[in-house]
């Protein structure tokens, strides 16, 4: 409850969600690739979410939360809820959150063999 209200209170200029929500939160002008290990591949509505553990280069790791396209769109191109499982090596092309938090929108995804899941 507190978390909810805090989150709402932090947003003085909210915009409505058209087709779920806009992409204004993501900075598509500053893409990066991210390699890590899949933690969860949430086949969720309205958008897929992936949590990826990324080595920090110092022996530790950092969790990234990535929002993807709709499950409908990915399913249309052959992906499924079982495309990934925890522990799978993955690579994402990511448009980061503008606020600098560890996450963003994924624009492309590859499995451990380098095969891309199209959408």
């Amino acid at each position: 409850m507190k978390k909810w209200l805090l989150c709402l209170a932090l947003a003085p200029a909210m915009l409505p969600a058209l087709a779920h929500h806009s992409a204004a939160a993501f900075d598509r002008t500053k893409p990066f690739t991210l390699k890590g290990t899949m933690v969860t591949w949430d086949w969720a509505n309205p958008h897929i979410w992936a949590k990826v553990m990324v080595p920090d280069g110092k022996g530790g790791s950092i969790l990234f939360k990535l929002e993807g396209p709709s499950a409908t769109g990915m399913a249309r191109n052959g992906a499924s809820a079982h495309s990934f499982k925890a522990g799978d090596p993955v690579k994402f092309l990511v448009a980061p959150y503008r606020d600098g938090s560890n996450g963003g929108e994924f624009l492309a995804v590859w499995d451990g063999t380098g095969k891309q899941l199209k959408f």
Partner: protein
Amino acid sequence: MMLRHKCCWTVALLASCVLAGPALAQIEKPTESELEAAPSQFQNLLHGRSKLITQTGPLAPKPGAGGGPPGMVQAVPINNPSRDPHDLTGYWASGGGPGGPIPGGPGGPGGRAGPRPPGVVGHTVIDANRLCTVSLGVQMSGARIYQDRYKLTMVFGNELRARRIYFTSAHTPNAPLTYNGDSIARWDGNTLVVDTIAIKGMITAVDFDLENGAHTLLLTTPSLHVIERITKSADGSKLTDQATWIDPSVTSKPYQTTSTLTYSADPLGYDSECEDVGDMFGPNYGSAK
């Protein structure tokens, strides 16, 4: 152009250092081929060939029927829709009257925001995924409604999704959680009162602060209870859906949204393909290269 892209990347890298510490070993500048792997609608932005335009002012009406979602075919109300207030059959496109296409949002011209949850400042949007799977209410994307003496069926997403509302007095005992929930209805005069419980899945609450980033919450709320009052206008051309959202796990008191649909003679005008017209992934999204 390349220089500009490199500059962008440098700025991003510096920013990430400031915000998240040293750059991670597994985060790299994408190669050209990796950038090309993204859907085509992103290419200009990813390659620095165009500038992302964000809107910071009041919400402007989107193209479409009565300010409906972008890409929606303009609805053309017919001259003589049924005036029977108990007959909701027909194609209904979003927008076109008080309430606007964005339940609970600031709305465009003619729109009206629903009361905000307590303690919230600015515009508030509670997006319960009504455009897609959780199609509570005849809201946002419009619907085609079929009606018989036992039930009312709303179909969405180019007939891909259906919500059924049964004319009965009691919910299904131990109703399993489903994306559309368990909906029952009764007539209160000329108003259809729809009561929905047992809603499965994630209810997405999204709030955006364009200046400072975004905060997104994903909540699973099986305790959500929605009461809708759906009323047809006297001339038969409008449906107004006033929804009351009750979820003690989310807000301390119920909040209300209002949306209006306009009768459409165009069988393709009432609906929009979920996500394919979305502004998140662009108009060509869904067609792999």
